[in-house]
C-alpha cells in the first residue's frame, strides 16, 4: 500500500482504576486504517471494541486512562494532546456516530440548529451559508424534503431518519475519520440495510476512513473492507473481511463464526464455545482464550501470542491473503 494510513494505533493500552484494582480494558491493540477504508471491529460485550473507539477520539474519562501506546492521525500523535487541542480535532478531523440516535441528539433543539451550530464551530461560514450546507447534508444522507425537515425536532423523526441526521452531523465538518459505534444496532433490518448502504456510499465518495464497531458479524461482512476480531482487550485476528469470515484461523474466531445462525446453512446445532468471557480483573495468563480453547497447548498458558502472519498448520487449506494476521501459537510454524 502506497497510501499513508489516516489512523494508526500502536500498542494501545487503556486501563481503568477501580476499587478492585486496575482493569486493563485494552491490552496492546495495533492497527492502521487507510483513506476510504472501513475497518470492522467485532467482539462480544467486554472485548474492548467501544473503548478502542473512545480512546481514538479522546473520550476516555477518568478513572480510565491511556496507559501506553500511541494513536497517530496522519502520522501525528494525538493521544497526548492537551484537551483544548483535542477538542478542535474532534468533530473536524474525527467524528463519531453513536448507537442510540435518540440520545446523541438534543431533544430541545431543532435538527437544523444542531447541524448549523456544528458547521459554524468548525468552519467560518455565515449563518445562511451554514443553513444551506445543513440542507445539503440532510439531502445527502437521504432525508426527503430537507428544506422542510430541517426545522423539525428530533422526536418528529423516526429511528432510521434520526440516525441519518446523526450521520449528517458527523459529516458536517468533512472529517477524515469516523468512529461508528454500533450505528445500526437500534434499528430494524430493513432500515439497517439502508444505513449500511449510506455509510458505504459516503466512504467511497468522500474517501473517509471508518472504524465500524459492532457485534453483528453480518453488518461487518456487508460493510467492512477489513475486520479485527477482538477478545478480552486484544486483537485475536485481523485481515481482509472475506478471508476472515470464510477462513477464520483463531479458534475463537472459528467458534464465533460457527455460533452465528445464517440464512443459508441449515445446521442442526450451532457451534458452541464452552465457558464465557473472562472478567477483566481476571484475564488468564498467556493467551487470554486458553481456558476455553479446544486446541490449547502448554505454551498457551504461559506465553502470550502476538498477531503475526500465519505459518505452518493451516487446517482450512485455504490460501491466506496478505495482511491476514492471527495471534495464536498454532500458526507460528513452531509447535505442531
Amino acid at each position, binding site marked *: 500500500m502506497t497510501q499513508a494510513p489516516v489512523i494508526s494505533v500502536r500498542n494501545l493500552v487503556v486501563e481503568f482504576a477501580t476499587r478492585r484494582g486496575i482493569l486493563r480494558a485494552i491490552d496492546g491493540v495495533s492497527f492502521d486504517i487507510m483513506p476510504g477504508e472501513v475497518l470492522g471491529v467485532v467482539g462480544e460485550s467486554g472485548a474492548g471494541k467501544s473503548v478502542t473507539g473512545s480512546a481514538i477520539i479522546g473520550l476516555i474519562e477518568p478513572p480510565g486512562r491511556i496507559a501506553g501506546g500511541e494513536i497517530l492521525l496522519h502520522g501525528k500523535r494525538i493521544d497526548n494532546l492537551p484537551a483544548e487541542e483535542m477538542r478542535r480535532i474532534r468533530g473536524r478531523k474525527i467524528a463519531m456516530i453513536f448507537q442510540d440516535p435518540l440520545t446523541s441528539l438534543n431533544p430541545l433543539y431543532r435538527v437544523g440548529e444542531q447541524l448549523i451550530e456544528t458547521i459554524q464551530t468548525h468552519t467560518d461560514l455565515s449563518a445562511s451559508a451554514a443553513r444551506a450546507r445543513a440542507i445539503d447534508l440532510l439531502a445527502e444522507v437521504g432525508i426527503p424534503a430537507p428544506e422542510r425537515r430541517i426545522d423539525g425536532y428530533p422526536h418528529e423523526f423516526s429511528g*432510521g431518519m434520526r440516525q441519518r441526521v446523526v450521520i449528517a452531523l458527523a459529516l458536517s465538518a468533512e472529517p477524515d475519520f469516523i468512529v461508528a459505534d454500533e450505528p445500526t444496532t437500534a434499528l*430494524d433490518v*430493513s432500515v439497517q*440495510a439502508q444505513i449500511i448502504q449510506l455509510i458505504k456510499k459516503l466512504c467511497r465518495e468522500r474517501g473517509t476512513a471508518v472504524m465500524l464497531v459492532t457485534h453483528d458479524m453480518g453488518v461487518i461482512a456487508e460493510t467492512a473492507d477489513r475486520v479485527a476480531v477482538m477478545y478480552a482487550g486484544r486483537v485475536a485476528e485481523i485481515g481482509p473481511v472475506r478471508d476472515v*469470515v470464510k477462513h477464520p484461523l483463531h479458534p475463537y474466531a472459528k467458534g464465533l463464526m460457527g*455460533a452465528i445462525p445464517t440464512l443459508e446453512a441449515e445446521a442442526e446445532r450451532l457451534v458452541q464455545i464452552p465457558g464465557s468471557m473472562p472478567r477483566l480483573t481476571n484475564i488468564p495468563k498467556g493467551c487470554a482464550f486458553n481456558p476455553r480453547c479446544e486446541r490449547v497447548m502448554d505454551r498457551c498458558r504461559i506465553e502470550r501470542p502476538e498477531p503475526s502472519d500465519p505459518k505452518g498448520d493451516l487446517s482450512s487449506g485455504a490460501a491466506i491473503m496478505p495482511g491476514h494476521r492471527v495471534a495464536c501459537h498454532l500458526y507460528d510454524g513452531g509447535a505442531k
Partner: protein
Amino acid sequence: MSENSKAFVEVRDLKRVFDVSRPWLNRVLEGAPKAWLKAVDGLSFDIRKGETFALVGESGSGKSTVARMAVGLLPVSGGEVTIDGVSMTKVQGSAERQALRKRIQMIFQDPYASLNPRWRVERIIAEPIHAFGLLKGEAVTARIGELLTLVGLHPDDGKKFPHEFSGGQRQRIAIARALASSAEFIVCDEPTSALDVSVQAQILNLMRDLQKEFGLTYLFISHNLAVVRHMADRIGVMYLGRLVEVSTSKQLFSAPRHPYTRMLLDAVPDLAMSGRARVMVAGEIPNPISPPSGCTFHPRCPLANARCKAEAPAMREIPEINGGVACHAVEEGRS
C-alpha cells in the same frame, strides 16, 4: 411433523386495540376524537404439538402483543386463543384457569429485568411450583436441583442471587423457571436478542435440546431471521398487526412469496457474502395509528396497484407451504 396431527395451540382472529387518545380535557378543549391503535388486527394461526412456530417482523408489527395475549398477560380485544381444546379467552372457573396456566410459560427478552434481584435463584425457580401447589418440602429442593442441572447450571447455584450470573446464565435460570411447572407450551419473546452471539448459540442449542426431550411447543418471537430460520418449523411474517405470510421455514427462506417477506430477507446482512442482488426497499413501517388504506404494505411495495390501495387482501391458504399468503399480487400472479 405429520400433516394431519391436531393443532395444539389455535389462534383465531385475534385482535387487540390500544386506546391512544389524548387526555379527556384535551379532547374536549381541542375537539380531538378518540384515537385507537390496532396493534393486532385479526391474526389466525395454528401450532401443532412439539412444533416451533415463529413470528417475525419489524418493531411495531405487533409480535410481542401477540405473545402477551397468548400467555394471558394481556386481555384480548377480540378473537380467541385455544390451547389443547380449552379456550383461554373464554375459560370459566378458577380451577380450570389454573390448570391451563400451569401448561403455559413465558421466557422474556431481558434476563436482567425478568428475574427478581432480591430473590435467590431457588426461590425464583420454586415460584411456579408453589403457585400451582405441585410439590412440598424436600421434593421442591430436589426438583430445583434437577431443573438447574437440566439447563446446565449447578444445583448449588440456587443459593445465589441473579446479579451473580451473566446474561446467558440468567436466561438459563429463566428457562428453568419456565420448566418448573412442567409447562408444555412456552412463549419465547426475543429470548436471545440481549445476548452475545456465542451465548446465543448456547441458549438456542439448549432450547432445542429441551424441546426434543420434553416435546415442548414453542411460540418463538424474534426480529432476527437467521435465528428464526435455525429454530422454527413454521414461520408467520407480521406487518402492522397482520400476518402477511405463513409458511414452513424451508419454503419461506427458499421461495418467499409475499413482497414484504422478500424485502425482509433481502435486507439481512449477508455473512456468506454470496453477492446476491439486493432489492433496496425505501421507507419504514408506517404509523399504526393511521395505517395506509387497503393492503398496509402498499406504500413500500414494488408490486402495488390500484386494487392494493383500496382493498385489504385476505389470507389465502396455500397447502404446499403449509400456510398462506395475503397479497393481491401473489394471488393474481403478478409477482
